């Protein structure tokens, strides 16, 4: 904090941060509890981690969460990129209508999207499970990918692709070598949003899944009805991975900058 921020500001920020982090620290501490209690810490133990790794339903939920997040991210990033480029060249009315419908899953409460998909899949008699969950995840991920790519395409010089074509590039080459590299930052952030949306989803997955196919969110929801400290163990692992990834993402640019400065001196 700089000189301008007073003592009250510091205390206030500290309280807000405590509010944010106490539940997280609490989860981590109680994942090492030797008893089943969620309220009294009775000694250090790794038994809940052991139980977690030996629990088939938990491991299966982790597996489904990761596989669906990866597939949904790859598919929605590819489809979203292709669509965004197509839309940027489409006429105004098509573009406006598609953008409007595209934003519906983002604007609507999740539960509305969820019941719509539930009714669609049931009416078409699609077997509920892995496929329905994957389709639903692709459905709500693509809008975010398109939304993060469109601004990059708008700021793109339309003459660039024309120049590539004039210089003898095929449309495919113009696309891959000129347009895609220019919008790469948008594609990457779209993919990141898609992955986290899919990884964290509960409401939509809960409504469209079936036949024992669960993700981590659904598992926590069904297990939380009874006290189960294994949930704390799996939560701690998720918290650890996210913290490390976010710190690395935020620290790498700083280190790079420092090296760059040193190199110049």
């Amino acid at each position, binding site marked *: 904090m700089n000189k301008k921020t007073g003592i009250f500001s510091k205390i206030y920020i500290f309280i807000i941060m405590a509010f944010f982090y106490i539940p997280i620290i609490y989860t981590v501490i109680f994942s090492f509890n030797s008893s089943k209690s969620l309220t009294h810490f009775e000694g250090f133990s790794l038994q809940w981690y052991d139980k977690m790794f030996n629990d088939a339903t938990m491991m299966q939920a982790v597996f489904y969460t990761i596989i669906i997040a990866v597939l949904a991210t790859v598919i929605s990033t590819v489809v979203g990129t292709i669509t965004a480029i197509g839309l940027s*060249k489409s006429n105004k009315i098509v573009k406006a209508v598609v953008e409007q419908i595209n934003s519906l899953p983002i604007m609507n409460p999740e539960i509305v999207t969820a019941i719509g998909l*539930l009714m669609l899949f049931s009416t078409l008699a699609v077997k509920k499970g892995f496929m329905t969950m994957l389709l639903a995840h692709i459905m709500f991920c693509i809008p975010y990918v398109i939304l993060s790519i469109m601004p990059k395409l708008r700021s793109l010089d339309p003459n660039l692709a024309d120049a590539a074509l004039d210089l003898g590039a095929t449309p495919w080459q113009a696309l891959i070598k000129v347009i895609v590299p220019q919008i790469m930052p948008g594609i990457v952030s779209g993919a990141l949003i898609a992955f986290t949306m899919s990884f964290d989803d509960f409401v939509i997955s809960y409504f469209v899944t079936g036949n024992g196919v669960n993700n981590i969110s659904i598992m926590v929801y069904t297990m939380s009805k009874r006290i189960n400290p294994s949930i704390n163990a799996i939560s701690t692992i998720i918290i650890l991975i996210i913290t490390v990834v*976010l710190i690395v993402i935020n620290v790498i640019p700083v280190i790079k900058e420092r090296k760059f400065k040193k190199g110049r001196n």
Partner: protein
Amino acid sequence: MRQFRSMAYPYIIWIAAMIVVPMLMIFMYAFTVKGNDVTTFRFTIENFGKFFSDAIFIEVLKRSLFIAVITTIICVLLGYPAAYIIAQTEGKTKMFLILLITLPMWINMLVRTYAWMGILQDDGILNSILSIFGLDVKLLHTSFAVILGMVYNFIPFMILQIHTSLSKMDKSLIEAASDLGANKLQCFLRVTLPLSLPGVISGITLVFLPAVSSFFIPKLLGGGQFVLIGNVIESQFLTAGNWNFGSAISLIMAVIIMISMYITKKVDKVENGERGIFN
């Protein structure tokens, strides 16, 4: 570059099937009753009548709105000062504080809500602290727990939105105001606050919408008896199997959300019209 146009076509078919058709199905089911098929299709508002004539459902609706409004107000009151303080910091401190605010958002919402269950238990840490002061209150399975859970999950959105609009603000405007003789409070009320209202408004949208439709926070922290409108929709679809009534309730919820968004935007315009410096 017209040859690229056709690249959007597959997605147009996809959204027709995956977004438009489900929306139409919600409308169709909401305005028909069970047993209808294409041949006996009969338009009715029976489902809506059933909802508004039942005192229990009206109670649920009122409770959902009350919880969502209180959550939103608390998020504004607690979030604004936090965003304001963060906006005053610079460089690494700012980056670090923003990272601290965003980090919990990346952690699964179910996991974060579950964490509160242990803290709020009758013999939990919060009650142990309160008992030092001679207080013994039931925390888990109350409205307090539900509101706490919602504020906890949704306040980062509020802080980030307000922070963005405060950061975009031209600092020289405040200097100009104080040069012209305004004191600190006047600077804040006449310059900073009106200019940050768009951030507050989008923050309100991002908090109110999930708060009014949430169904796992009331279930986890409010207990089985604590029913909000999201829980009614859930049970209509997953236990009762009454798609018609469930669809009608979700339409009622969607309309309520649209009305509140409209009012919020209107209030924003009026405020800016009266006190803003640019309109």
